[in-house]
């Protein structure tokens, strides 16, 4: 039988996945108020290739966690199919579970009275890892995340950052092929967050079969870690691609920032009247002026600089301004939110 890695199937695949929550009896489920029906996921289709770190971005309640719960076999989709390594998450549950692991942000799992080593050993048992191999892995993992000295420390004595690094080891001790990270660095300080990110990258480099699905609210984290991202809003995938694709897709104009040695207010007016210049804004900073330009197309920058020089201005520095992933995200989610407000009828009274 061929190893799953040898087959040409996506590591994670969802086909038109829909998940509807019905709230009854005064309870609120998945954001659905009592007596109402809420569509948490509405036709989500994704293909995540093996070896990728894939980011799923979305606001609170967008459907990220619901999707992860479906993929981790904790929740059934109302309709549609989801596959892990080509296996149906609703029908081949045991096989799927042997291949996956999950770490959530702010996780307090395990038992404080156990030592770190015991805690990791316990979870290794749940995946049938023989004790000898488990202890070897535990040593390697703890050392890799900088917790080697804490192996015999009781779990309740760990700091939040240490605990999350231990949680990462907990997920990896079963040697999963697919790792789900649900806001893994939420609440961590800068150093601990970086440590988690560094280790995730290192773990991915060790084996090309490995895949990570990351949800995060931190756009820089997605930008730094992810090969591909998808933006989910109100249960819909509203954009998908590389982080650069997303940023470029939103850029209507070429934006530049120039530092000028000499500047007269009249220059700004002159630039605004030039062909190809959409916007020009100058701001005095100490003995220099910072000029921000929005051009119709990138190639307009050369004649624009020439005209500044002709007018007596002196350009000290020029920088192309790239939109950040955060800007792209806000634009995407904002637009989608607007259209969702118009289509409030999607929420059906039960």
């Amino acid at each position: 039988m061929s190893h799953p890695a040898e087959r040409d199937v996506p590591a994670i695949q969802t086909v038109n996945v829909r998940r509807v929550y019905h709230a009854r009896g005064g309870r609120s489920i998945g954001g659905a108020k009592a007596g109402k029906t809420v569509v948490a996921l509405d036709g989500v289709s994704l293909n995540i290739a093996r070896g990728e770190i894939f980011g799923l971005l979305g606001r609170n309640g967008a459907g990220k966690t619901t999707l992860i719960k479906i993929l981790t076999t904790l929740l059934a989709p109302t309709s549609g199919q989801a596959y892990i390594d080509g296996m149906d998450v609703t029908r081949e549950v045991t096989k799927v579970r042997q291949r996956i692991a999950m770490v959530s942000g702010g996780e307090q799992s395990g038992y404080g009275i156990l030592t770190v080593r015991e805690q990791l050993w316990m979870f290794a048992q749940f995946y049938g890892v023989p004790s000898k191999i488990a202890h070897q892995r535990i040593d390697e993992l703890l050392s890799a995340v900088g917790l080697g000295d804490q192996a015999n420390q009781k779990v309740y004595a760990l700091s939040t950052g240490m605990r999350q690094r231990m949680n990462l080891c907990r997920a990896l001790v079963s040697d999963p092929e697919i790792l789900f990270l649900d806001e893994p660095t939420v609440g961590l300080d800068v150093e601990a967050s970086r440590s988690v990110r560094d280790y995730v990258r290192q773990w991915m480099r060790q084996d090309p079969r490995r895949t990570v699905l990351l949800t995060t609210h931190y756009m820089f984290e997605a930008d730094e870690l992810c090969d591909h991202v998808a933006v989910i809003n109100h249960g819909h995938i509203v954009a998908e691609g590389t982080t650069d694709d997303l940023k470029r897709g939103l850029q209507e104009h070429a934006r530049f920032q120039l530092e000028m040695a000499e500047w007269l207010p009249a220059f700004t007016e002159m630039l605004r009247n030039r062909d190809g210049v959409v916007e020009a804004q100058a701001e005095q900073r100490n003995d220099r002026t910072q000029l921000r330009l929005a051009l119709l197309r990138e190639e307009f920058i050369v004649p624009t600089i020439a005209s500044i020089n002709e007018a007596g201005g002196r350009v000290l520095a020029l920088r192309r301004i790239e939109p950040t992933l955060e800007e792209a995200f806000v634009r995407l989610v904002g637009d989608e939110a607007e259209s969702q407000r118009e289509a409030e009828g999607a929420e059906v009274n039960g």
Partner: protein
Amino acid sequence: MSTLTPSAEASAAPAERSFARQGLRLGIMTMIGRAYPRLVAANREPDWIFYEVALPLLQICAFALVYKALGAPKYIGIVILGGGMMAFWINVLWSMAAQLHWERQSGNLELYLMAPASMLWILAGMAIGGMLATAVRAAAVLILGSLIFGVTYHVVSYPLVILAFLFSLVALYGLGSMLASLYLLYNREVWAIQEVIQEPVALLTGSYVPVRALGPIVAGFAALIPLTLGLDAVRQLVFPHLFATLLSPGWEVAILGVLVIVFCGGAAWSLRYIEYRAKVLGRLSLKWQ
């Protein structure tokens, strides 16, 4: 649909057996893993000696002194035996029935459900760990209580005592596992429910008085709690002809055997039902629901 060739059919059976063996191995490892925190780690903090041995002994002393004052010291033995068995009931109540609720709060439940072995193995690990750890506490209560009040035991039949004790424990932890699933689905106020049922059950099961004293109807209903028949049977077998009993020990052990099947089967069924409902309704693993 593909058809198996004869050779493929021949190889399918060993493959299935191998898969079952792997499943059994995984289940046992899961059970041992989950039992570990209760067996080993729970004894690390010495305060259990105070909370789980000294305090129950005080309660036993209170009842024992009442019997002594009433001129019936021969009944002190049944109080001590009841006190020992009560340790198991408290463990079942707080560390089995309520456990999945706590596990959900801490986020463990999600991880348990995501693990490849059935949740039943997790529950079995919780039960075995709880049973063995509590056995140490119950034995301490029993030995100290017997030494303090000079109680002697005359065992009529060791096999029946062992059967009655084991059956009542397995049925009791089966009941705990069943309650764990039901609590998970229907109850949020675990503390309140636990507090409400703890003492009445101690009375109903006859922990400190012979259960027959409650009258046949109440005692009959109380017999649905495995502790009741277990205690009555063990008491009959170690203090023969001391008090009026419900049924003969043989019948009580047989009924306990039925309760084992009912509660363990009920636990398996309710867990599957809960998991199904949770996956469909989304009410199981999310902490805030």
